[in-house]
């Protein structure tokens, strides 16, 4: 009985897979050129786009970062936020957050309540007031440290752990029922 099949045999046909050596080199050369182009792109992009990701301590205590474009992270002090909607000028202060911590919310809370932590004033121009800019939010900023001890940021990303984390309820006078 005739059988109609639309699938190719899974068995490899050795005779068809062989190709002249020069043909193989042609493909290898093409691949090499392509790889070189991508490598050059990545290298030049890395050199122009690389930013040190630093803590407030590092930026404030190391003068070599003055004038350099860097990224830094810190905890926002809510009562320092000043925003002028007419000009878009935004200023606030962030406090140092250590590199290692167990819980982000706790680390941010400790940063803003501990007066011994290094603090840094941030200045931004032509901004829309970010919705998440609030007390104890984590700010990730890109910009330059000025000679005047202020950080002039051009980009601001915010993360509010109380919104993305779970937290615990604070019950003032827990009226309890037994199980």
């Amino acid at each position: 009985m005739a059988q109609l099949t639309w699938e190719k045999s899974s068995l490899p046909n050795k005779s068809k897979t062989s190709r002249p050596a020069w043909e193989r080199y042609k493909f290898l050369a093409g691949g090499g050129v392509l790889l070189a182009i991508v490598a050059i792109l990545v290298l030049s992009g890395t050199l122009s786009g690389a930013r040190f990701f630093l803590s407030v301590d590092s930026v404030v205590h190391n003068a070599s970062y003055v004038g350099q474009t860097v990224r830094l992270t810190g905890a926002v002090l809510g009562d320092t936020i000043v925003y002028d909607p007419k000009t878009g000028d935004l200023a606030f202060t962030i406090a140092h957050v250590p590199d290692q911590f167990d819980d982000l919310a706790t680390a941010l809370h400790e940063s803003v309540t501990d007066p011994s932590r290094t603090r840094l004033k941030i200045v931004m121009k032509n901004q829309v007031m970010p919705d998440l800019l609030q007390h104890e939010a984590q700010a990730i900023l890109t910009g330059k440290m000025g000679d005047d001890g202020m950080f002039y940021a051009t980009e601001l990303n915010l993360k509010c752990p109380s919104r993305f984390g779970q937290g615990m309820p604070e019950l003032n006078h827990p009226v309890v029922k037994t199980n």
Partner: protein
Amino acid sequence: MSAEIGLAAVGLAFLAALYAIFACVYGERTYQGRLVLSGRNAALLTFPLLLIAVCALWTALLSGDYQISYVWSVSNPQTPIFYRITALWGSQQGSLLFWSLLMSGFSAVAIWLNWRSERRLMPYATAVMMATLAFFIGLLLFFENPFARYWLDSAQQVIQSTLIPANALTPDAGQLAATAKGLNPLLRHFGMIIHPPMLYLGFTGFVVPFAFALAALASGDLSPNWIKATRRWTLIAWLFLSLGLILGGRWAYDVLGWGGYWGWDPVENAAFLPWLIGTAFLHSVMIQQKRGMLKVWNMVLVLLTFSAVLFGTFATRSGVIESVHSFARSQIGFPMLTFWATMTIIGLGLLVWRWQRGELRDEHAFAGLLSRETLFVLNNVIFVALALVIFWGSFGAPILSELVLHTEITLGKEYFMQVTPPLFLAMYLLMGIAPLSAWSATTIARLGNALFVPALLTLITVAGIVFTSPTTLVSLIGYAAAFLAGYVALWETYRGIRARRGGKRESWAAAIQALFRRNPQRYGGYLVHLGITIIGIGVIGSTLFQLETRQTLRQGETVQISPEYQIRFDALERGISADGREIDTATLTLLQDSKIVTQITPRIDNFPGQAMTISGAYSTLEKDVYVLLTGADATGQTATFKIYINPLVNLVWWGGVILILGTLLAAWPHDAVPERARQTASKIAKAAA
């Protein structure tokens, strides 16, 4: 009660998944058909069990059971019912449960549909799917339990525990309700309600092709069966992932108030990586189907796609990546990293083993530099190169600098804006050229002939742009590449229709219908190309020609915001909504040559503890006038606005719609054997009998 039911269902689903792994693998190795069958049934059982768990959590959310810590963290008594339902994926634990449900759903359908046709692959494929599912359910049970509850210990301190601690008391329900947080206001948006489920469907859907590929490697059935069984699954997962990415962009555009939709954030990029590798796989799989080539490469791509899914999940959920989109830091980071590394190593290890045994040899060699298979491979290289450079910029450079230099170096937007455009340009050029080349070999003359009409149309269009719109050299090159890809897709479709009309004397409508019915994969693919073209044009226009201005206006004052438009501030209303938020709504009139075009109403919603800036926009296909209310004085007489004019931005969304339609067409079930061939085969069979 909801917590107990949910917890029991999750626990049983975990046991069922573990049993399914054992029964399928051991049963298959020892030829015990009944054991394998029981493993299949256990795998199928995971879906109803997880559905029960999801229903239990929904019941808790809808009934306001705030003793469950998840319910307390994502809802409060003011939360509307609709947002209580969507709060299921509003935070880590619930979204992990939802993720597990979707994965078990995909697994159950794949098992159900393929069990008989792919009998040799299915036990192993089931085991892989269940291993992945068991891992995620394990995370739910042991790290991020959505049914954990608040208790009061003997010192009257609130503690969180899944099981009832000894001597624990129940906190007062009224106080729990009063302190409940409610869903993050930023997540109360249509795009954000649908975006996560779409993204999860895309992510979890890729488990099916991954499982079939691993099953093919483990069982030794390396025929095209696994490709045949998984192509549609890959398309479906890709469709949802595309939809998730587009909706995420739309959410950012509407809610985040910076007039853009893609910020090159590590978590955004992590979701883009599987899309890129998955797209490469969808193209190269055609070469294996048609020419029996790229067997190893296809395996690599399908393994890497799911590996990228797992890595993206780790990046988003572990909290170790600094991103505005990531969840809070949690304990699941290390287990997730371990699982990702394990699955990737197992997959690549099996692949190397089969390859060394010579079981993945290609059936044909590459014939010429301009053959369709060569150009498809080139297109694959571009997709993979894009994935690699984005991975390097988002994760590679920061991790490597930390390890080698002991200081973290991150690559900002500048890196991505410098490195990715040339690769996207190459992608669009190949999208234009590759479909016109023939399998095996094509001459330059033949390719030139095929390209003539689309290239001419591209030239005319670009000339038209030069004379009618602001341009730069970079934008013209980008437009030309994108238009070429789009015109090739349209031209090829037109040629198909014309051939049918000439040969079969069909009407236009009948010819179009027949064309898409007979070869949905090809013509659905062209529609996808058209969608990508339109997205590309939208991205170029909105990225390179965005205008922005800040204006402080008194009521009744009009200002010129662009050569074309003026805007007038009419009024500011202050009110309180039913759910307690204070809303400031500004009314502005957009005018063109002093004629009223429309009214725009940007607003600020002041939720307790957080404000939310909601844009107002006048949208046309040509541009968006996008207005943000940034502040107002106490009397409401003066207000400040940030105004963006975003040219062509709506093409990004409409291109997305066309891309989705094209993918649906390409994935639509159709007869693999044409009707006429089937009739001929039937006649031959009858004659032979």
